Each structure stands twice: as C-alpha cells, then as structure tokens.
C-alpha cells in the first residue's frame, strides 16, 4: 500500500499497521539482542536490551489498543514502506558487537528512538487525515520522551571507553 493513497478511510489503518510492525520489529530485535548478549556474557548490555524490548512491547500494546476494532491491511514483511531497509526503531546488525559497552548500547537505542520519532513526525506532516495526524503526533511525542530519558541516562553514566572490534583471542599455533 502506498503512502500516496490519501483515502482517509484507509490511511489511519495503514499508519497503524506500520506502527504495529515498527514496534513489533523493535521488540523482537531488542529481545534477540538481549539473548545474544547474555550468551556472550555481556550482562549489562543484555539487561539494557531486555528493558528496551519491554518498552517496545508496551508501545506495541498501546498501538494494538488504538487499532482495536479496525481492519488493518495485511502486509507481508517486504511490503511495508520504510525510509531505510528496516523499520526505523530496529537496531541494525552491523552496529553491534559482543563487546559493546552499555553507553554504546544506549547510544544505539537513542538513535533508534530518534529515527522512530522522525518517522512518526514525517507521517504526521505527510497527511491531511486528522485522526492519523493525531496518532502519529502522539507516537512521535512518546518517542521524543524515550529519547530524552535515554539522553538523561547516558549523561548520568560515568565515562566509558568504546570497545575495540578486533578479536584478540588468538588461535593456538604450533610451536
């Protein structure tokens, strides 16, 4: 479904379908990262990603409640329209490393929240449909709130160095 279709009967449904997918993807990716970091003994980052997964799940429930009673378009994963390759709040795999610090994980999440805010804000400005504007603005404001909270948490953390990506667990070599 194209965002150029401005039929007010379908625009809110299209927006909510995208919002649900966005939050669902964020929740699943954060959950996946939490498990992955835990299995690599990076517990602080695992715990943080688990919290972010919970936050995304709450937001997903909120969108579901707003969409209750509506028939949302049934889109395949590749039919959603995102500004980038993946949904805006989804952590990009290549940004990750098992040695990443808590600050780096928070900065990654902050970038995700800002991307989500920008996406929702963009949706609000691209439509004339009043209910869609209201919902998109509300979601954008919530993402802005999450970003502000993350900024506060990052500022409160002691200075942490960035991890190095080079593997230093050397292979056993014959003498």
């Amino acid at each position, binding site marked *: 479904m194209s965002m150029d279709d401005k039929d007010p009967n379908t625009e809110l449904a299209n927006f909510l379908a995208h919002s649900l997918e966005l939050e669902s993807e964020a929740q699943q990716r954060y959950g996946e990262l939490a498990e992955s970091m835990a299995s690599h003994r990076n517990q602080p980052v695992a715990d943080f990603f688990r919290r972010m997964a919970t936050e995304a799940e709450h937001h997903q429930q909120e969108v579901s409640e707003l969409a209750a009673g509506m028939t949302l378009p049934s889109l395949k*994963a590749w039919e959603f329209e995102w500004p980038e*390759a993946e949904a805006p709040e989804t952590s*990009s*795999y290549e940004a990750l490393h098992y040695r990443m610090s808590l600050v780096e994980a928070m900065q990654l999440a902050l970038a995700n929240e800002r991307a989500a805010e920008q996406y929702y804000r963009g949706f609000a400005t691209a439509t004339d449909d009043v209910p869609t504007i209201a919902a998109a603005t509300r979601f954008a404001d919530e993402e802005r709130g999450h970003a502000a909270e993350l900024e506060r948490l990052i500022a409160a953390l002691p200075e942490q160095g960035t991890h190095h990506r080079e593997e230093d667990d050397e292979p056993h*070599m014959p003498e």
Partner: protein
Amino acid sequence: MTEAIKLKAKDYKSEVKPIWCPGCGHFSVLNAITKAMAGLGIDKDNTVLVSGIGCSSRLPAYVDSYGFHGVHGRGLAIAQGLKVARPDLTVLALGGDGDGFSIGGNHFIHACRRNVNITYIAMDNEVYGMTKGQASPTTPMDWDHSKLTPHGPGVRPFKPAALALASGAPWIARGYSGNPNQIAKLIAQAVAHPGFSFLHVMSQCITFCPEQTDWKAIVTEREEPALTSADEAAKLFLHEDGFQTGLLYREQRASWPPERDRAADQNALAGLAASFRV
C-alpha cells in the same frame, strides 16, 4: 470449519536460541526465512531446512519446522535426495561460503546443473568463522587478518554467481544481511520458482571481519529486471563488484527429475512400500 490461523514470522522460530555473535548477519537471514515462510503461509510440517557445517549451518535448529544438520558440504546432496523422494515438501538448503564453495563445491556445481526444485541459501561472510577466522573460497586475496594467511590468501576469490551460472543454475539472486526484508522477498520468489534457486547472501561476520561493516555503504539494489540471457548474465557476474542485490538472473528450464521418472519413482516407491506390508 475453523478458519486457518495466519502465522506470524515469530511463530516460525523454534525455542532454541541462536548462539551466533551479536551483530552476525545470519540473524538477518534467519529473520528473513521466517518472514518469507509467514508471507507465503508455508506449512511448517511440510517444510525441511537442510544444512552442512559452520556458523550458518546451525540455522535449521532455530526454525520451527523439520531440519537436518548434515555433514560438511553435503547439505545440498541431502536436500536434493529429500526433494526427489518427497516432491511434496518445500526444501531449503543452507550453508556458508566454506561449506558451499569449498568443502561442498562439487555438490554446488552439480546442484546447479541438476536443477532439482529446491532453494539454496548461501550465507557468505568470506571467512571460516566457526574455526575463528581463516580464509575461505570467497575471501579477498589481500585479506591479511588471519595468522594462517599473514599476507592474504593470495588467490582470487570465487565469484559464486558466475560459478552458478556456468554450472547451469536457472535462478540466481543476491541479498545483503543489512536488508532482511529484501532477503525475505527473494526467498519467497525463490521458493515459488519451479527449479533450483540460488540465493547468495552477503552476510557479515563482524567478529573476524570487522571491515565488513562497510558493506552497507557499497551494497546497491539492482533496479533492472532479472536478466534472462545467460550471455548478459555472464558479463554482469564476471565484471560486477559482487554487491549488486536483487533477482539477477532467471530462465525457465524443466527441473529434474523429468515427469516420466517422477511417476516411475512414485510407482517404485509404492511397490517398495507394499513389499514391506505383512
């Protein structure tokens, strides 16, 4: 009559959690496979994922369907045998660049030639990751990150798409792990193709090849429709940089085994089964 429940991508994941390194591109392929299965509404009970050995070959354990974690480089042999014996099943073969192009190189070229109706997804990170980072058949010749090849492997890497084309593969596509939704779409197309489909996925190993985080900047999505001329495809595959993604080549060719043999095989199987009845 109850309405069929539409499964979501997460419903196709098993309870087994991946132990890949955080940031590994194979997570993306796993997500793409489950998204494609959900998009196609594939029946879990009639789907089999077959793999060889290596990081990527762990994938069948993470999908809630039937799976076979096979012998190194032999995933394609098992997958083809299964499909010939049970043509009703959806069969996906999976593996990495070492498994598929080195240890299983012969199975790869003959699978392309034989054209059994399966989908082969090769997750190419240009390195043997499970054994801690040695050069593979697709490693750049100047890659000097391994102590085993301190000056780089010094040999030209395979071009998997060119190799597949020369061996007769009728359907060739490439994806990038930074774009799982595109991979999902390509998998859906590959499964729908009535023959051997080869999906080459550039799937980064950020642990042993951290420079692969730069792939995002060089990957492009090919706008043109899939080539149908083998001559044109050969020119493309021999001269491109290996980072063009999308459905690159497609031709219509009858899959193997021929229809007459299928009927004969089914009769033979039925006869065999009958001979076991008491």
